[in-house]
């Protein structure tokens, strides 16, 4: 039964990811005074891409063709670790947040290799930029996550969320620092403005898009889907760790339904905040990203220090 719910939760994760992307796009369109496409547009795009025959370069090796499947699978596995609508599920019990970061790193490793594989200048450029950014983003992310897990004395997300729920609404300075650090990292890791621009057509400015420039058809669909999943994953992480209220603690249909509504509401609000932020700022110069991620790391570190100084002694 528990496993069934765990599988259901992961399926929901995968199924809802394009919806979040569609909603985000809709919010951005409204803010730019444009007519917005339907929130279901990402599903249609994925379907369209799936029906198209992929065009693969003659120079491509097996890696190029397998990489989308590896990336997609690894991202789903990462998603299965994160509690979406319920805590205490077996998938989240068997793996912790470090495993999740590991899955991300694994997916990114293959994405970067695939970018290099075809030998185009853009792919290599994108891979190099992605690795530069992620090498700065990952420590910042771990620092933020450790701050939270120190409070709960566990690296397991499910237990950490349960701990926060038990404690009730307590204003912890460490959590505020960690929240901002995690938001900054999430923006960088999911390739949003001001770090990367997911809608650009300018090859030379691309980071994530440059790596996948050679992909088409179902391969592209899988990578796009994985990106949407990653965006949702970060959203859920932020929403459920810092504001876990509403998440199901028992497996009754009522609690689960309530949990689903709660996370949809939280993500919708997060998407609006992201859309506003993306509308207000221009993309930063590539060499500013290190300062930006350095700042995220600093926030994580401050969070940890404030935990040790202000909270741990009690």
């Amino acid at each position, binding site marked *: 039964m528990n496993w069934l719910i765990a599988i259901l939760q992961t399926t929901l994760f995968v199924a809802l990811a394009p919806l979040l992307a569609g909603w985000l796009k809709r919010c*951005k369109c409204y*803010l*730019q*005074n*444009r007519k917005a496409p339907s929130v279901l547009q990402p599903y249609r795009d994925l379907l369209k891409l799936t029906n198209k025959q992929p065009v693969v370069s003659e120079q491509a090796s097996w890696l190029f063709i397998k990489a989308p499947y590896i990336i997609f699978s690894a991202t789903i596995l990462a998603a299965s670790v994160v509690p979406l609508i319920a805590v205490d599920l077996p998938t989240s019990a068997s793996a912790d947040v470090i495993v999740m970061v590991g899955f991300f790193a694994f997916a990114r490793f293959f994405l970067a290799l695939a970018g290099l594989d075809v030998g185009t*200048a*853009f792919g290599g*450029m994108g891979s190099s930029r992605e690795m530069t950014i992620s090498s700065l983003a990952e420590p910042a992310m771990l620092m933020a996550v450790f701050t939270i897990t120190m409070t709960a004395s566990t690296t397991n997300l499910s237990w950490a969320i349960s701990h926060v729920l038990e404690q009730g609404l307590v204003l912890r300075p460490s959590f505020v620092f960690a929240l901002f650090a995690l938001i900054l990292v999430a923006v960088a890791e999911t390739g949003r*403005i*001001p770090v990367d*621009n997911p*809608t*650009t*057509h*300018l*090859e*030379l*400015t691309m980071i994530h898009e440059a790596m996948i*420039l050679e992909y088409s058809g179902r391969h592209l669909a899988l990578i796009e889907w994985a990106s949407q999943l990653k965006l949702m994953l970060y959203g859920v992480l932020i929403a459920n760790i810092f504001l876990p209220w509403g998440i199901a603690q028992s497996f009754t249909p009522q609690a689960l339904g309530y949990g689903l509504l709660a996370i949809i509401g939280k993500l919708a609000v997060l998407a609006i905040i992201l859309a506003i932020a993306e*509308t*207000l*700022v*221009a*993309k*930063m*110069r*590539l*060499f*500013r990203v290190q300062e930006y991620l350095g700042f995220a790391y600093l926030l994580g570190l401050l969070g940890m220090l404030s935990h040790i100084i202000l909270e741990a002694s009690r």
Partner: protein
Amino acid sequence: MNWTTIFLTQHVGWIDPEMPDKPIGDYIGGVAHHSPLNNVAVWQIEDKHWQQFAITAVAENLRWVAGWAEQANEQFIVNASFEKNGVYMVLRTAINASKPELPSQATVYPAANRSERHTQDMFGIHFIGHPDNRRWTRHQAWDKHQYPLRKDFPVQGEPAEITPPDMHYDFVKGYGAGVYEIPVGPVHAGIIEPGHFRFQAVGELILNLEERLGYVHKGIEKIAEGRTPESLARLAGRISGDTTVGHCWAACMAMEQAAGVEIPSRAAFIRGILAERERIANHLGDMGAICNDVAFTFAQMQFTRLRELWLRTHASVFGHRLLMDVIIPTGVSRDVSEQSCELLKKDSVMLRKELADIMTAIDLNSSLEDRLYTAGYLSPDIAAAFGTVGYVGRASGQNFDVRRDATYPPYDQVTFKVALEDQGDIASRFWVRHKEINASLKLIEQFIQLLPEGEISTPWTTPTIDSEGLGIVDGFRGEIISYVRFDTDNKIARFYPRDPSIVNWPVLEKLVLNNIVPDFPVCNKSLNGSYSGNDL
């Protein structure tokens, strides 16, 4: 007294109008005929002094403006145009077709570099001492000894079934640890024109950029031959779609000069309105595109919206969104009614108000400021050395505007301020455009106010054979030069349009240096050269 007189006195000697063949001075050594091409002096010199003249001209701070050639029987006539203080002149020489050689002027004028390569590709004229004699406009579409602008080459061309790829162009290479090469284009991910850019970079830092253009060569010069004036005006309006008014006006001005036709004053004013409206439409598009290239989409959407509304007024008043074919030789094809004038006035008021609102939002955005300031710096020295025109030049302190400095109707009857910035970065090019929009709005209002009554066109007189004209107008990108020579029966013998992009493209290679690779698109957009206008 303008500089040409002083120049002749000092370097050539003044030619006695009674005995034009007898030169007095011989500093340059050539025979300098002072035969006017309407209002522009034409100096004919011997071919061997071609380079010597350029050296003297550089010392006298003349700006190289344009270069073109044509075939006349057993000779090639090569022309180069220069400007100083708003006064233009044309330098001309004839070379023997059996041994087409000419000393290069590109050795001292970097702006002449690509123009001479174009002439070399099209006519097979060899420029001695040229610093870079690689092909330019020619890719692989013609055999080695075919020169498309020679008279014996058919207009329809001799196309191979499949044009061989242009694979072996000898790009400048970078060597050393960590130096790598990024080829970009000619096919781009966005909907823009084709052009190839070859970067040498270390990490993200640009060491060198080389442009490779010519992918949209349409044979404009060749297919212009034998056209009627109306037909040439239509062709000129299609050299670069965004400058249809500018090119059409320049070509018509040249033809009208050649034919000795004076257009009615009302037509000149309507042309002025058209040109300024075109300028505003393009500047709005460019400003939006600059913002979009740094992912500030909000501004782009707003500018696009304003441009769209502006273009709709074009369509309702002039019958074409981009104003194509409104200018015709002898005048304009559409009159503006009282009602239309009111509409145009209202449009200007609306734009000024809405633009002010958007500019407030942009001016306060520090993330945008961070991207646009100091990036893509073009020093005034380089801008001057390359003869940069239009908003690119004016953003780097080049205080030159054809409308003011070599004025023509209707600009001679109004007052306006030429927008100028001296920071030379992307932000400067952005703000120059903004200032130009405001100046153009004022101009349009003045034109409407002063719009005289009368005809909008005048009868055409067939020009005599070999009548020439040089049209010089200020398009939205800057100075446009259009040379026209007539054959018999009202037919065009030679047409050469010099789009401002031809002199502005080369500075892109300079202004991106020391920038990082991901900043190139916004640098390029701030310059916004026309590929079509460059490739012809």
